């Protein structure tokens, strides 16, 4: 019976299986058409968003920048062995196929061919960079396109891992090789690679390599493998820092970009626009661009404050107090929010936003704090009311948006609160950086065209500052860091230390996929995310604003704040030695036994 069915289902009387596929294009067809070539390139640009990015809000809750605000708790404590690991030799092969095709194509003029070659090699260098910062040295395959024919010796296709230093060197040399065939004019919305993007990648790769060579060897037990796949010798640090400084200064002196200062009278707004508004942008060098229809992201939809929401989604995550307090005051480097006086009594504010007066204007440009404006109206964050009873302040909270008998708000629709409900804030803050102000950008139907900058001018300046400091040129370093602080609108430094670089990068580049990699390359991650409960840094903290409702009391209608442990994220972050390098997957080793494992594996 079964046999009969099988025979029947395999018999056919047409040549159905012998037709040429009509959905697969041959290489000749692709590389014989300039428009087709361009669409292959744009496919590559769509496949290279790794690490932390705005199309996935939860990626911001992993570190010490934001916490989850919706649904169930975030039980994270440790970091995965494959956290943000990139291993995409499929893309690498596609890029090399593309290079081969473009070089042989007859339908392109020389200038276009050069540009396409430059962009493909830039994307390839970016791919290698994303691999090396997670795993250390990986096989470098050059321009080779591997083709397997049955019976061939596959060991010729198995390349061993390069050393970590060699892979960084390779990225640097590729960027140097392509910088003069890439355009010097900024591309539309910074979406395509230019000479300056290549130089930025070169500078970033070099400063990463330099700091690993420097700080890894200062650990009591440097992380390394005998073959150098992980770990860079200390004597290479100087050369890498020099390369980083030269590349960064080439960008700084290009005249194409600047530390955008279009609204000197409103520095917070100015900082927001430098990052989050594409029109007339002078700051961003290379970005993942989004465009409606088809290419949009859900960051605004997910994170818009409930009071401003246009659709169902809202308040998936909120920035945390750890980050807010790392922003300095304009004239005070200790950024702590003053919520209690020396005797332990509340500090009373007339308006909630007064608690953030005189903060670094970049705080306004990065984070919506209680009472700050969004799209022209204030974002009310109110956890509840405080009233005086039995000689102490008692707390009254309610459902979101409820008012008391005198029509005074108890708990705001925005939150924050201590429930597990979704669509309400749990930390006391909302994102502003990358939150789109365009109407209907937070709807499911449209979503947002907000871009995600990967390289921008301020990074060139801070790389130059860091590299010159490490090279002992602290005068130069001071000058560079004060450029960034001056644009932000905070006091200049009189002298500069390594710690100043760490702090400046934390606040300038919040939510821009720098924090994790920075702390890793400086070998600070295991000291900051130390896994100790209630640690001021490793634990996630929030700030809850309360309205005083006690008519007759001198503080009636004023505001107080309480620092709370984020209940959605009960455990401290714990970064362990093994997290400095991702694990090499056993499946890859099975396919290529020449790959050696990473330390702690």
């Amino acid at each position: 019976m079964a046999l009969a069915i099988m025979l029947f289902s395999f018999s056919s009387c047409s040549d159905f299986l012998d037709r040429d596929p009509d959905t697969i294009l041959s290489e000749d067809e692709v590389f014989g058409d300039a428009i087709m070539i361009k669409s292959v390139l744009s496919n590559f640009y769509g496949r290279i968003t790794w690490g932390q990015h705005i199309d996935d809000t939860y990626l911001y809750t992993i570190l010490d920048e934001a916490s989850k605000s919706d649904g169930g708790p975030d039980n994270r404590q440790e970091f995965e062995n494959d956290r943000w690991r990139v291993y995409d030799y499929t893309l690498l092969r596609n890029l090399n196929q593309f290079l081969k095709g473009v070089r042989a194509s007859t339908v392109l003029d020389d200038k276009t061919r050069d540009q396409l070659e430059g962009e493909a090699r830039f994307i390839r260098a970016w791919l290698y960079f994303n691999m090396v910062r997670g795993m250390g040295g990986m096989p470098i395959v050059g321009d080779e396109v591997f083709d397997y024919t049955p019976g061939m010796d596959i060991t010729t296709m198995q390349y061993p891992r390069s050393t970590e230093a060699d892979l960084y060197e390779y990225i640097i040399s590729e960027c140097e090789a392509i910088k003069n065939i890439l355009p010097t004019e900024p591309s539309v919305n910074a979406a395509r690679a230019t000479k300056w993007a290549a130089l930025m990648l070169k500078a970033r790769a070099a400063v990463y390599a330099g700091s690993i060579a420097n700080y890894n060897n200062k650990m009591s037990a440097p992380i390394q493998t005998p073959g150098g796949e992980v770990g860079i010798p200390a004597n290479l640090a100087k050369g890498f820092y020099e390369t980083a400084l030269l590349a960064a200064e080439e960008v700084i002196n290009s005249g194409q970009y600047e530390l955008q200062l279009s609204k000197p009278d409103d520095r917070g707004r100015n900082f927001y626009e430098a990052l989050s508004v594409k029109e007339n942008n002078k700051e961003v060098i290379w970005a993942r661009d989004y465009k409606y229809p088809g290419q949009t992201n859900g960051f605004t939809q997910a994170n818009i404050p409930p009071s401003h929401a246009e659709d169902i989604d809202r308040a998936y995550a909120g920035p945390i107090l750890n980050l807010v307090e790392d922003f300095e005051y304009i004239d005070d480097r200790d950024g702590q929010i003053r919520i209690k006086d020396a005797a332990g009594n509340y500090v009373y504010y007339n308006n909630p936003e007064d608690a953030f007066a005189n903060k670094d204007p970049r705080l306004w440009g990065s984070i919506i704090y209680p009472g700050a404006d969004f799209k022209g109206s204030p974002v009310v964050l109110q956890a509840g009311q405080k009233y005086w009873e039995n000689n102490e302040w008692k707390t009254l909270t309610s459902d979101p948006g409820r008012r008391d008998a005198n029509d005074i708000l108890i708990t705001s629709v925005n939150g924050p609160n201590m429930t597990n409900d979704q669509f309400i804030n749990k930390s006391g803050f909302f994102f502003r950086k990358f939150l789109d102000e365009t109407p209907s950008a937070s709807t499911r139907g449209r979503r947002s065209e907000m871009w995600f900058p990967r390289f921008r001018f301020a990074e060139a300046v801070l790389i130059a500052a860091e590299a010159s400091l490490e090279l002992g040129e602290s005068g130069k370093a001071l000058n560079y860091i004060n450029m960034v602080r001056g644009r932000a609108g905070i006091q200049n430094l009189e002298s500069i230390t390594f710690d100043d670089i760490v702090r400046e990068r934390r606040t300038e580049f919040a939510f821009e996929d720098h924090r994790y990699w920075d702390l890793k390359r400086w070998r600070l991650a295991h000291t900051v995310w130390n896994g100790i409960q209630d640690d001021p840094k490793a634990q996630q903290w929030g700030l809850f604003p309360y309205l005083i409702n006690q008519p007759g009391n001198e503080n009636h209608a004023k505001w107080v704040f309480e620092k709370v442990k984020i209940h959605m994220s009960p455990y401290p972050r714990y970064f362990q030695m093994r997290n400095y390098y991702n694990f090499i997957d056993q499946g890859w080793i099975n396919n290529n036994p020449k790959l050696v494992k990473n330390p702690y594996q």
Partner: protein
Amino acid sequence: MKRYKYFLILMAVGTILAACGLDNYDAPDSILSGKVTYKGEPLGLRGTGEAVQLQLYQDGYELRDNIPVYVKQDGNFQARLFDGEYKLVTRNQNGPWVNERDTIVINLRGTTSVEVEVTPYFTISNETISLNGAVMNASFEVNQIVNTAEMDYISLLVSKTSFVDDVSYIARKDFRDLQPDKLSLSMDMSENGDFAAAKYLYARVGVRTKGADQAVYSKIVQLR
């Protein structure tokens, strides 16, 4: 349609019944057990989160993926395997001991017990841990085994379950800048809400070496 339905049921039943016997064999029932020791004494380790692992390799197969063996907090481990010859090593740079990774060849027939002898940087001995009101008092001796090792910190840890380590705890206090010696340390938990609410309390002392990925721990003492 109805005809097809019966047909499909018949097919499904047929498929289920027509399994082949060749690739089915019994589950492994040989047991490899053992402990991680120094001079015969088992070491106190972190037992949660798969933190300390040993690796079992078996030669003669094409792929060389290891079998991870998870070490419990009292230094014991156990694996259920097929009979055969295995190679047991510690995991690279894992554990509060010198990373030597000598291979132990194990011939497993039925039940086999093995001791994995390591050289810890420090050991803890003669520990007495007690609770006085809300204050935990611990006195113990830290013995330096490896001369070049530097102590990073000593932790006093209290947990409400019998799992006590640098991740599972309700109260913790770290002491830095101490020298290996006879030590008496204490931790006040009167402000700790978890401490007051806990029905059971267990405590332990841990010593972390600079550059090691794990701490070495004392035995666990039940306080409440």
